[in-house]
């Protein structure tokens, strides 16, 4: 090695100072409007864009089977015209006041998020109230967004990660479970959804009772509750029914198998390796799971990328994480590898993820705990991040100090807590999906003995 230009003396490596105590903020104001809507307000000085989130609990499994996808389509249509303003006028009003509105559903809730500069907050709340309470669902817009969903389904089929995710849920969960089918619906069903379906679902499933509103940002000098009484406080939904009790989805009886989605000519293989995971109310505590995800597949130095990326160069990165649902959840390892390294990568992954081989060291425990606990103050520094976290807690019916208490529990974890938590979840054989050119590796994957192998078309 040649000498470096300007070879300066080595400055000794500095020590690291202790982190000050930290807690996720509690709401500066926490109450209910007269219509039943819970309000959690966080005054976050210096955050000039206010983050507003509405959470309406609903279960996708409450969708009628013959119109699955109606919840998602309904959410997309909320800001496409109301009884007061047609769709073009409504869009123009949002844009002229600097308002960004987005809406969507997941397995347990309708979520509507609004970002708005503080001076337009009341206008935003008024438009949000109209979108929730008196959406018009114009026929033209129903047709347009239904077509957009059909186009999106084709886009998802063309995208390897989306295609893998779709096959994974179809293979992992029992066929009678809503969780086994796409949140926004499949083509043959979406094409049948009409305005009447959308309006009916909205009337029955969207209302203020049981719902929550989170407002985060610079709120000093604002009489928020007075503003809310004039806007979202007027939201009433006389036919609104509360959702059924949530239940964790059942696994398919043959979930532990390998499905190869065949895409001839593919230069990479997209892998998705999943199993049933916990939700955040798990009796033994949520704290170990984010740490385990980080240690297995959360960084270039994690167990998986240390081998597949940094040693072998087969991938740009593979991630492992727990995805909690309202009830139950998913443990997912995913990413793409070089096509001709597919079978070897699967073999390495099966070995790394095998619960019989997973026993975490003290050093791993320390690094994982310090990462998860130490990143919290920076991760929750903005109004948007605080609002999102609070909304997700309210969606899952968790207390608003859950984040702080979970962080404290994280700091107290032992290696055996991690080992016990992982072995309680991880199976000997996984549900494995590969999207790629099956002709390159189907035979070798069969020889791995990681499960029965079937090949399906893209």
């Amino acid at each position: 090695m040649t000498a470096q230009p300007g070879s300066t003396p080595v400055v000794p490596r500095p020590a690291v100072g202790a982190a000050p105590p930290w807690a996720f903020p509690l709401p500066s104001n926490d109450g209910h409007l007269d219509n039943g809507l819970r309000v959690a307000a966080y005054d976050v000085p210096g955050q000039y864009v206010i983050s507003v989130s509405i959470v309406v609990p609903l279960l996708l499994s409450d969708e009628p089977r013959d119109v699955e996808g109606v919840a998602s389509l309904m959410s997309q249509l909320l800001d496409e015209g109301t009884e007061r303003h047609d769709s073009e006028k409504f869009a123009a009003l949002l844009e002229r006041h600097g308002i960004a509105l987005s809406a969507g559903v997941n397995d347990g809730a309708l979520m509507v998020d609004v970002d708005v500069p503080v001076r337009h907050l009341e206008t935003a709340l008024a438009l949000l109230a109209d979108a929730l309470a008196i959406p018009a669902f114009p026929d033209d817009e129903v047709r347009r967004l239904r077509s957009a969903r059909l186009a999106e389904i084709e886009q998802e089929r063309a995208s390897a990660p989306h295609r893998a995710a779709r096959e994974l849920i179809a293979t992992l969960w029992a066929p009678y479970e809503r969780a086994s089918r796409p949140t926004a619906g499949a083509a043959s069903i979406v094409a049948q959804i009409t305005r009447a379906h959308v309006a009916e679902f909205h009337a029955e499933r969207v209302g203020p009772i049981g719902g929550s509103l989170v407002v985060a940002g610079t709120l000093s000098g604002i009489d928020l509750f007075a503003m809310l009484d004039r806007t979202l406080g007027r939201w009433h939904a006389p036919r609104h029914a509360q959702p059924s009790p949530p239940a964790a989805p059942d696994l398919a009886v043959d979930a532990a198998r390998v499905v190869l989605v065949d895409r001839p000519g593919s230069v990479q293989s997209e892998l998705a390796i999943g199993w049933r995971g916990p939700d955040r109310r798990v009796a033994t505590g949520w704290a170990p799971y984010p740490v385990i995800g980080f240690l297995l597949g959360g960084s270039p130095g994690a167990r998986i990328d240390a081998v597949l990326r940094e040693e072998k160069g087969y991938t740009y990165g593979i991630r492992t994480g727990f995805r909690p649902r309202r009830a139950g959840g998913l443990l997912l390892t995913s990413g793409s590898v070089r096509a001709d390294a597919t079978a070897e990568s699967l073999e390495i992954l099966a070995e790394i993820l095998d619960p019989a081989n997973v026993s975490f060291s003290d050093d791993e425990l320390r690094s994982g705990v310090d990462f998860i606990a130490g990143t919290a103050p920076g991760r929750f520094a903005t109004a948007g991040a605080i609002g999102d976290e609070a909304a997700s807690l309210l969606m899952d019916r968790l207390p608003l100090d859950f984040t702080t208490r979970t962080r404290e529990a994280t700091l107290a974890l032992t290696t055996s807590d991690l080992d016990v938590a992982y072995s309680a979840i991880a199976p000997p054989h996984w549900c494995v999906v590969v999207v790629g050119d099956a002709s390159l590796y189907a035979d070798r994957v069969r020889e791995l003995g990681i499960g029965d192998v079937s090949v399906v078309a893209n």
Partner: protein
Amino acid sequence: MPLDYPIHDHTLANGLRVVVSPDHTVPVVTVNLWVGVGSRHEAPGRTGFAHLFEHLMFQGSRSVAGGEHFAALMAQGGRLNATTWFDRTNYFETVPIGALELALWLEADRHGHLLAAVTQENLDNQRDVVKEEKRQRYDNQPYGNALVDVYAATFPDGHPYHHPTIGSMADLDAAGLDDVHAFYRRHYAPDNTVLTLVGDVDVDSALDLVERYFGGLDHRARPDGKRSAQLPPVEGPVRVDRFDDVPNDRLHLAFRLPAEGSDDYLAASLALDCVAGLTSSAMVTRLVRREQVATSIGAHAMGFVDGSSLGLVVADIAAGHDADRVEEEIAAELTRFAESGPAPELVEAVRAQAERGWLSALASGEERADLISQYTLLHDDPQYINTALDRILAIDASQVHRAAREWLRPQHRVCVAYLSRDADAEGAAA
């Protein structure tokens, strides 16, 4: 709203520009470095090098083992990464305040003493990782190479923005350790770097720490500050067709724009938002909402500093409609806008959206630090985060109109069309 984020601008004797912006709301600090090297500085036959180099910066340096940079900071609760773009490479971490010194020490070691640790083995490994990155993000992705086609068709051969940051894999294969050494010496040095600290620090002690860890770096890059002359609009139109396995036809209409840093760039960027960037833009209202010949249309500007920026309008064609016809309709809307200019409500909407966009970007210390580094390194303007909004809001309708007339007429477009190879294939979405 006047913004007044504190900005303290200081240059060390070795040329390192240091900007400190205290923010005591949370006990963390962001360390953000911009190095004045990106794909536009790459020599012919060595494309992709700035990006490959960014990967090597995580593989160890004089006192730091391979992978240790990530591991050591993550173990302290740090979040970190790096990215490469046309005009620059950035490196950044947000750490609990107690780990600030460690972060500075690690950064100084790799920004000052990388070559002691670069080996053929880690060069080979990271070249493989970059190839997988290219396959994942470009080759195995529908429309993944569309922007590569846009750059090549919009900027002439040999122009700094003609090739993408990912570069050519053949060029990467041809690169050896001697290239790594030469590249590092040429570009990585305190006088070609801006270091920004945003977070729970005091200015004086922060500057003392930076001096302690970076003050000893004495290598010089002597950056070449030359900028190319502004490129005129494309005299076209130009059309590039790609027949591919794509779920629907998609048009990418590209325009040269004024280089970033001028009011002309801001005006052109607002004009682009007016034309196709809003839901209430006339083009979107007519083609997406009323006629439904496109499922979506969007637009945005990419600011570059060396003689041109890039404006993009992207349209997804609705099933059963003809991409050529939609391109004509888009062209007609461009002409209409260039002739009549924006309605006052549209300018109001574009400004309101820009305001929220800026305030949202400045909400997090990470992004604030990145913007400070950007405008300090590329525009010598560390105060820009405080003044940008006033500058944007001062652009009036006549400036927007003029920018559209000059830059966004249909004859100035480059259209890269990704067309479904099997146009009448049934979407067998079982």
